[in-house]
């Protein structure tokens, strides 16, 4: 099999701003590249995005391919996939990573199809390992780990027999830490040649809310679940969050019940968070929820049911009725920290 021993990360930008997940992937890609003694490359596509390309070196990129053209300002499937198709086909990187965002999940399958590469969606972990599969030894394969079947099962997927292994990775699951000493900037410009095919789909208008909640950046999160029963009770969660300087979040059940808005949902279909402190109130701790918060530094669980699975991952467990416990908690906090 012929391939370049390199990890390639697609750097996603929206309105000229890089997506966090792309830099998270660079951090992970840096480790993967080390484990396979390879290089870390990234691809930046957009209009006027050289600054983004420069930033990649803080996260371990050895080389960044830059495709910069006014027609590429906004993500569109056809031009972006055509560019990546050419890059992947001509360079044959060993691994290509995308964020499991709307853009990544639109783009990656198109490129995988064109290059006949294997693609695994929504990975929550990636590792390099020697693998024995059907009596063959495969050195340094990419283990693509993801929840499957509604989160009941964790599957490890491999792509043993094709040159390029592709994966999309969920936002927030890989740690974002710049490398100690940034790599030397090495940007390679690739010319974009417009093609009529690229214009088959036009963006008429675009709306993005920029002031939306950023749960991922919150050091403290207080999350409520369906166990709170009423919107009234959910207010206690808001009060507690307000008192201790945290953000309010909810489980999917709490969102479905209308206790909290969808942009504050933590879990497999919501946001993945890793705050310093996560307080789970009236959340039973289904696997889908835990997937979004179990990496939190400290977890406090408050639940009436001592058997609730949330207690299995909590550092501090309080069994009891939140409606009684939270006011006492708030009182004690105010007393201690006034």
């Amino acid at each position, binding site marked *: 099999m012929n391939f370049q021993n390199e990890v390639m990360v697609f750097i996603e930008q929206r309105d000229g701003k890089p997506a966090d997940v792309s830099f998270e992937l660079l951090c992970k890609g840096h480790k993967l590249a080390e484990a396979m003694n390879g290089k870390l490359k990234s691809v930046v596509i957009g209009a006027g995005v050289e600054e983004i390309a420069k930033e990649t070196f803080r996260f371990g990129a050895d080389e960044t391919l830059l495709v910069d053209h006014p027609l590429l300002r906004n993500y569109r*499937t056809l031009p972006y996939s055509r560019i990546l198709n050419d890059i992947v086909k001509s360079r044959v990187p060993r691994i290509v990573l995308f964020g499991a965002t*709307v853009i990544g999940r639109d783009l990656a399958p198109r490129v995988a199809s064109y290059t006949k590469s294997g693609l695994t*969606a929504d990975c929550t972990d990636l590792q390099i390992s020697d693998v024995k599969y059907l009596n063959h030894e495969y050195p340094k394969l990419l283990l693509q780990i993801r929840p499957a079947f509604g989160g009941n099962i964790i599957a490890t997927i491999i792509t043993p027999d094709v040159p390029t292994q592709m994966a999309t990775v969920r936002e927030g699951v890989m740690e974002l830490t710049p490398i100690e000493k940034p790599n030397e900037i090495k940007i390679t410009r690739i010319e974009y040649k417009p093609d009529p095919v690229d214009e088959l789909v036009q963006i008429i208008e675009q709306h993005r809310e920029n002031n939306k909640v950023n749960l991922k950046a919150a050091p403290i999160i207080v999350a409520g679940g369906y166990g709170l029963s009423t919107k009234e009770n959910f207010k206690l969660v808001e009060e507690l969050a307000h008192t201790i300087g945290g953000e309010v979040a909810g489980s999917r059940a709490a969102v479905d019940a209308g206790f909290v808005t969808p942009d504050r949902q933590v879990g497999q279909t919501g946001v993945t968070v890793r705050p310093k402190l996560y307080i789970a109130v009236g959340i039973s701790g289904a696997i889908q929820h835990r997937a979004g918060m179990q990496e939190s530094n400290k977890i406090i669980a408050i639940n009436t049911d001592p058997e609730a699975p949330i207690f299995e991952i909590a550092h501090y467990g309080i069994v009891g009725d939140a409606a009684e416990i939270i006011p006492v908690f708030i009182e*004690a906090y105010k007393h201690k920290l006034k």
Partner: protein
Amino acid sequence: MFNSIVMVKQVPDTANISGKVMKDDGTVNRTKLPAIFNHEDRVALELALQVKEKYGGKVIAITMGPPRASDILRECLYMGTDETYLISDRKFAGADTLATSYVLSEVIKKIGGYDFIFAGRQAIDGDTAQVGPQTAEKLGIPQITYTEEILDVNKNKIKIKRKIDGGYEIVESTLPVLITVLKNVVSPRPFSSKRVMAFKNAKSVLDLEKLAEENSLLYTDKLIHEYKERNLLINTFTMDDLNLDIKRCGIAGSPTKVHKVESVILKGGNQIRVEPTKAGLNNLIEQLMTDHIFG
């Protein structure tokens, strides 16, 4: 007039799955699970039917799966689909999204004459959202994923509102185009009782072959002819009916392999119980202050 092909999938009901239904190779033993119509595909079908009602044309539903996947094609007929196709062969089994999209795209080329291809965003058994875009790529047509609403269709263009990260956008595409649809954007219509009566006996060629096998008085060819006459035939493609590269089908054509499957095990163990009393909570807050989380 706009013709639509809707890609639908029968999926295991993943709400209740245990390790017992997994085979040793990591694939699902589907026979042990209740099989249901993937919800997002049903929403996609509803959108296609609405386009048909508004602008005229034809709706064709296709599915790839085991013979019993004809169940959901009957459901498509109950909702208003004009024609159905079952794509079924043991040689297609174990296909990942790449091999699946290869077979689907070849079938779609064979059917031809479409303006739109609709599909749900993703199926609940894999949640990959890959088959739609991969099929579009193989057909060499544009795609619009994460569709929330069809705003307008005219001559050779469609205008769609779609979700993007942190908002939405309105896009316009030339035809033909493949469209994947988010859940809950429209409510799928209930079955029409008239159509249930009309199509409850609809059968695929595989169903008819089985009938003929079980009854020496029946002949497959005759049955097919008869069911076709009565408009009750679910068109059926097997490997032999299609001009396919076998190396690109089923397990052989699937670059991704399931290496390992684990049931989720909770970690935990080091948990500290805090009494729900003032003293207990005081201690907890002090501990968090010591850890520099509070204060």
